[in-house]
C-alpha cells in the first residue's frame, strides 16, 4: 500500500492554488512532523498524556491533509489512547507510527524531487 493517497494529494494541491504552494507545504510538513513525533515520544517518557494527545492530534490532522491515511489512522489511535490514559498501549505503538512517518516523509520527498525536476 502506498504511503500517500494520490487523489488526496492532488486535491490538496488544487485547494492551495498549485504546485508551488504545495511544495512549500511539503517542506513545512517534512520539517514539523519529525518534531511532533519526538514531542509525542518525549511526552510518553514523562507520562504527560495531554501533551502526547496534542502532538498525536496535530500529526493526525496534517497527515490526513496530505493523504497519508495510514499515518493519520495510527495517530488517531495514539490520540485516543492518550485521551483514555492508556500510555502503555500507546508506547507499544510508537515504533509503528515512527516507521510509517518515515515512509510518508520519504514518499513526500520523492514528490518534491519529482515536482522540482519538472521545473
Amino acid at each position, binding site marked *: 500500500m502506498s504511503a500517500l493517497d494520490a487523489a488526496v494529494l492532488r486535491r490538496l494541491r488544487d485547494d492551495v492554488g498549485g504546485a508551488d504552494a504545495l511544495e512549500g507545504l511539503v517542506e513545512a510538513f517534512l520539517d514539523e512532523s519529525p518534531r511532533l513525533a519526538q514531542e509525542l515520544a518525549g511526552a510518553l517518557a514523562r507520562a504527560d498524556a495531554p501533551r502526547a494527545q*496534542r502532538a498525536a492530534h496535530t500529526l493526525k*490532522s*496534517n497527515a490526513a491533509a496530505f493523504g497519508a491515511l495510514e499515518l493519520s489512522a495510527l495517530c488517531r489511535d495514539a490520540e485516543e489512547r492518550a485521551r483514555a490514559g492508556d500510555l502503555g498501549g500507546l508506547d507499544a505503538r510508537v515504533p509503528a507510527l515512527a516507521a510509517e512517518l518515515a515512509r510518508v516523509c520519504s514518499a513526500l520527498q520523492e514528490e518534491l524531487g519529482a515536482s522540482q525536476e519538472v521545473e
Partner: protein
Amino acid sequence: MTRYLVVDDSRTSRMMLAAAIRNACGQGAEIDEAGDLDEALKAFGEKRPEVVFLDMMLDLTRTGTAGGSTGLVALDLILRERPDARVVLVTALPADHPDVVDAVSLGAFAHLEKPIRTDAVKRVLATLDAEQGRARRVK
C-alpha cells in the same frame, strides 16, 4: 481589502489555511499568522484583522494557561478585546460536537472542519460578505 489572522500552533496547518484563503479570495488577501495565544493577541491588537481563523485545539500550555477547552479560552479573550471581530473556529470536530456548539454559542461566527477545503473557505467568506453587506445596508 479584508484582513485575516490565522491562529494555529502547527506551521503546516497555518500555511495550508493561509494558502486556501489566498486561493479562495485572490493573491491580494492580507493574511497574518500566529502560532500561539500571545502571538495571536499581539497580532490581533496590532494588525486589527476583521476575521480570525482560530484553531480550536490551540496549545495554551506553552503560555502557562493549560486546561479547559483551549480554543474557547482564546475565543473569549479575542471577543472581549473586540466583540465585532469575526472568529471562525477551525477544528477536526464536526459542527454538532458539544465543544463546537459551545463555541458558536459563545460568539464564534462559523466553523470550518479540517482537513481544510477551499470550497468550505469560500462558503465561510461568502457568508461573511453577505453579513457585512447586510450591516452596511442597515447603517
